[in-house]
């Protein structure tokens, strides 16, 4: 892997780390959602710095170029994070539904009481 690619990958990962930690610090991102991103950043740094590991993984998955491995893992990461968000959205959807239903029932109760 050319040194420029390595520097670029590590720089992007470090930047990602800083942004994630800062978002958590400013309470713009919950810790709950930060771990997957930090894990990815750590993974990219590990593969960029430890070239032998990248080569090993490339051979194991049957890829030709190490860069393909990085792209592949990037794609897998996006799939995983999207699935994770989909589960979160489903759960939030249920919470919003329950809240809206309860609010509507309580509102109707308040209205009936005030109409009496």
């Amino acid at each position: 892997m050319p040194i420029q690619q390595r520097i670029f990958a590590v720089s992007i990962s470090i930047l990602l780390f800083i942004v994630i930690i800062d978002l958590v610090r400013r309470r713009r991102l919950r810790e709950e959602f930060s771990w997957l991103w930090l894990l990815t950043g750590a993974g990219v740094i590990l593969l960029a710095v430890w070239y032998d590991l990248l080569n090993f993984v490339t051979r194991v998955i049957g890829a030709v170029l190490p860069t393909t491995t990085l792209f592949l893992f990037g794609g897998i990461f996006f799939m995983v994070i999207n699935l994770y968000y989909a589960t979160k959205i489903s759960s939030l959807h249920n919470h919003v539904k329950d809240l809206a239903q309860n609010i509507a029932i309580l509102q109707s109760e308040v209205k009936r009481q005030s109409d009496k």
Partner: protein
Amino acid sequence: MHRKIIIVIPAYNEEGNIGPLIHRIREKLHDVDILVIDDGSADHTSRAAEKAGAIVVRLPFNMGYGAALQTGFKFALRYRYQYVVQMDADGQHDTGSIRTLLDEIKKEDVDVVIGSRFMDNRTTYKSPLVRRVGMGIFGKIASVITGRPVTDPTSGFQALNRDAMRFYASPYYPVDYPDADVIIMLHRAGLRIREVAVTMHARKEGTSMHSGLKPVYYVFKMFMSMFVTLLREDKFVKRIVAKEEITHADTTKNIRS
């Protein structure tokens, strides 16, 4: 308010249908409360329903047929109604058949009574071919799984007792297009289901919820829901035993505290 029986009618943009429907119910039944769940309508559905003498619960935004219906079950549980009849606002379900459903549920040997338009051939209209094919397939699947003939798996004209209400109000009730999959869920949860013959008409005005591309999603959802229901049999049995867990009263308590 407050009687033992409540008729739950989810309504979305049914300003034209809802008033006459409530009057028709009132002409035939005097001993019931009528609850209209206005599913965030853009027209004056709520006003028309109130004017006709119904109790109205207005959802803050459009949440879909199943969520609106479930609101009615939560309401019925909260106010301790003994029986619920769910029916559509579009005039398809014949008000004369409500008594048939109630007579059956009051026998106390069944938890859910489903009004079937195909028993005794009482229906006055023919559904579109695609819908009939869908109903045939889902009916067959439901029949095989439940071990009893299901002639009208998509019927939203039903009567429930409190056990069934608790199940319908639980988080396990599929709020997007509750349909044939619910029959399987009910069966798996150990609830007793029975079909009785009812009359249904063609809808009077407004748009069907099965318009546009929705039938495509509906078919997918139904297969998916039936499949996963078969994979999680035990959970439902346990949850229906632990009644308090699924009443949603806990959610209400949380809001209060």
